[in-house]
């Protein structure tokens, strides 16, 4: 054990900023990270044990106790629940003989829940020893447990019905399907790796690239919509020899899975975009921050990087040009939605807990290891490559005035064709519903942009997807009339934010709990109309939180109240303000009576 630990630490040159990798590798080897292990790491890196625990205990995929030879993480996302998660959960529990949150006494199987793993188009899904198992049924769940009891390997349990495209690549062998329902003219159009690099090497300077991107009006696809050209320009002008390019593949917003598909099918397009950004900004290092849920792609992606190095598209003298050096490493996360926030992402890549930084300074001025750092979304890099290849004029012919080009949408929920749609900006919600085969008269609501976005009703289905109207990072969850909106959607999302708050800011840390509790109370039928008023009123406090997570963490509730007030009113209408219905005397004395009944 000691040898394993030392070998891992040596692999990362005893560099404490690589603590995430060190912990991930050790956990892969030893199954979990014990107090003894922490002590060894502490000694080897010469940092206090509390600092290691500070990082380790922040991420929900790190375990300090054994978590089973087979570790099952069942997805607790909204769509997973729509599609029968409860039955699957029950099947796992019955067959394994334990409850979720437990490990079998023989240490064989551990059952855990986790928030959205980026498989909303094929729910219910679970991660088992980091391998995705999509489209689960109770029967499949039982079979999986039985095979575990028979000591079968994960590969055996997976079987060989791999998903389409690169999912079947020998280094991935994943059961995941891409579900690309519509290929658009930018991301999913023809692509020959290296062409854009060839072009810039031949004819473009770094400022030419930035000008072209600026002229395209490309805005970041990670949600905030910051102009990409401007970001690159600021980073280019920032002081310092060492600069970094980060690709944000943390994709944690429930209901979003487009980056999963892009990375599976077009990894070279993503990496080429990073190379171009490096050229434009003057950076020699790139980091792909890959969420732990997508770690199953890692070997495959490493292989792709090696191919690019072999082809002269990465490494030294890229495209044969002297001084054009750029290389990429993959940094895996360990389970924390907030790490998608760019400064938390950087902290995490530095081996720390994923707590967002105060701004200013912004990452473009002082980011990774305090050097100027560009963080862009997967899709943003892909788009940049195509703009460099075909020009900003070509790009500007698509989309709307404020939103040029296309957007890759993740569509899931109550519809016939969940999956990925690359469409020009400017389509209405109704258009997308039609494409996805959702029957409008059966639809209650659409959650646009994930939990941090908004829950809209039929009245707004005519609205247009674009920065000037309904801005979105690209996810639509379709919610049918058969669903209980408050329980199935709002409560789930508030639970999500409560679990994912980093805890630093007081309003975010505490109000996310308050909101969850009050929604729960309303779901139990114990809410009062003053509860609804308070939920609406208190959300202003969230605007003063440090990062986007806290600033939007009450959106599930307030947008649902705004558009579905009648559902909330209905659930509280019988309850008086004078007496608190949530206090249940029988419940409150139960513990006391039980003490004596047992005797």
């Amino acid at each position, binding site marked *: 054990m000691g040898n394993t630990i030392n070998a891992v630490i040596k692999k990362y040159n005893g560099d404490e900023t690589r603590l995430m990798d060190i912990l991930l590798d050790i956990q892969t080897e030893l199954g979990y990270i014990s107090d003894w292990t922490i002590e060894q790491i*502490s000694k080897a890196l010469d*940092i*206090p*044990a*509390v*600092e290691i*625990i*500070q990082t380790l*205990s*922040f991420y929900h995929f790190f375990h300090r106790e054994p978590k089973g030879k087979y570790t099952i993480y069942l997805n607790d996302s909204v769509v997973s629940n729509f599609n029968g998660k409860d039955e699957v959960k029950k099947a796992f529990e019955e067959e394994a003989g334990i409850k979720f949150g437990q490990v079998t006494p023989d240490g064989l199987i551990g059952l855990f829940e986790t928030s959205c793993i980026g498989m909303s188009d094929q729910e219910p899904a679970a991660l088992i020893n980091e391998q995705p198992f999509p489209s689960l049924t109770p029967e499949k769940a039982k079979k999986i447990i039985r095979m575990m009891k028979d000591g079968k390997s994960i590969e055996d349990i997976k079987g060989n019905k791999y998903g389409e495209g690169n999912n079947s690549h020998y280094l991935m062998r994943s059961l995941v399907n891409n579900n690309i329902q519509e290929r658009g003219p930018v991301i999913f159009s023809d692509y020959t790796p290296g062409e854009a690099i060839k072009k810039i090497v031949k004819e473009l300077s770094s400022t030419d690239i930035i000008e072209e991107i600026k002229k395209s009006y490309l805005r970041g696809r990670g949600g905030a919509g910051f102009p990409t050209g401007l970001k690159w320009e600021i980073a280019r002008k920032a002081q310092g020899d060492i600069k970094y390019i980060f690709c944000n593949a943390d994709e944690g917003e429930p209901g979003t899975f487009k980056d999963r598909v892009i990375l599976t099918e077009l990894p070279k397009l993503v990496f080429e975009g990073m190379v171009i950004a490096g050229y434009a900004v003057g950076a020699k290092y790139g980091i792909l921050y890959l969420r732990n849920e997508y770690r199953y792609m890692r070997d495959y992606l490493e292989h792709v990087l090696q191919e690019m190095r072999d082809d002269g598209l990465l490494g030294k003298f890229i495209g044969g040009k002297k001084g054009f050096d750029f290389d990429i490493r993959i940094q895996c996360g360990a389970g*924390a939605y907030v790490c998608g926030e760019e400064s938390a992402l950087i902290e995490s890549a530095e081996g720390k*807990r994923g707590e967002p930084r*105060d701004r200013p300074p912004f990452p473009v001025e002082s980011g990774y290891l305090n050097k100027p750092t560009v963080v862009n979304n997967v899709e943003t890099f892909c788009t940049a490559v195509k703009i460099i290849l075909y020009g900003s004029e070509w790009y500007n012919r698509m989309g709307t005035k404020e939103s040029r080009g296309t957007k890759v949408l993740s569509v899931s929920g109550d519809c016939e064709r969940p999956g990925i749609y690359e469409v020009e900006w400017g389509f209405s919600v109704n258009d997308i519903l039609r494409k996805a085969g959702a029957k409008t008269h059966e639809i209650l609501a659409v959650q646009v942009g994930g939990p941090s976005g908004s829950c809209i009703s039929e009245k707004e289905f005519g609205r247009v997807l674009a920065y000037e109207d309904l801005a979105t990072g690209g996810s639509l969850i379709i919610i049918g009339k058969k669903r209980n909106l408050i329980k199935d959607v709002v409560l789930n999302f508030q639970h999500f934010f*409560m*679990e*994912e*708050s*980093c*805890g*630093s*800011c*007081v*309003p975010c*840390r*505490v*109000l*996310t*709990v*308050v909101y969850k*509790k*009050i929604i729960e109370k309303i779901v139990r039928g114990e809410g009062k109309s003053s509860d609804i008023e*308070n939920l609406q009123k*208190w959300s*202003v*406090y969230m*605007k*003063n*939180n*440090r990062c986007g997570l806290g600033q939007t963490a009450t959106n599930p509730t307030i947008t649902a109240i705004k558009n579905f007030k009648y559902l909330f009113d209905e659930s509280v209408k019988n309850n008086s303000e004078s007496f608190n219905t949530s206090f249940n005397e029988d419940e409150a004395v139960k513990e006391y009576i039980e003490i004596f009944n047992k005797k």
Partner: protein
Amino acid sequence: MSTFVKFIIDGKICLSEEGKQLIEAAKENDIYIPTLCNYPGIPPKGSCRICTVLINNRPATACTTKVTENMDIKTSTPELEDFRKAVIELLFSEGNHFCPSCERSGNCELQALAYKYRIAVSRFPYFFPERTIESWHPKLIKDHNRCILCKRCIRGIKNNEGKTIFAYGRRGQYLEINIDPETSKNISDELAEQAMNICPVGAILVKEKGFITPIGKRKYDYNIIGSEIENQ
């Protein structure tokens, strides 16, 4: 030589060195901005959010903001004051604050702010979380019931080798402060005392100390927090 800049706080024209922390710059101009996680002399980390002000009409935390020429700052709109009250109430709801039995009562910054705003009760439900009191350390007691997770101890206290003693554990509602048994092993009495004093509340106590000042003589018995700045 440092340059001086002119800026406006609540309509009053102020002067200070360029780049100075807004909390300090305001203080120089006799204006008090409530703080909790900020502590003079240690790097700020805007986590409590109570010092939120409007800078050119956008919210920002004063402890992480540096003053620049012509900044227009508002510190006390009704919305901001209501927000501050909410922050204090959230902290009371989240922890277990039984002031009548607390060693820090009367000298506690959280309580003092609650007095300033005349907060009689939290508008939010009380959580009554299950939290522990740690007393394994030879010199220190860590009462998790009262910790407001401001990070002042993490940022401000290092042992004589410059090593961290306090650090965060977990996240969100389970966020907590851990003490390192190794790096805290041989801390001096002075450092232990410093740790107690850097904590704004009664979450770090030095063993066998407490209730030293009688009621009536305590820091905030008669003096409103911040009044020493405003009444210059």
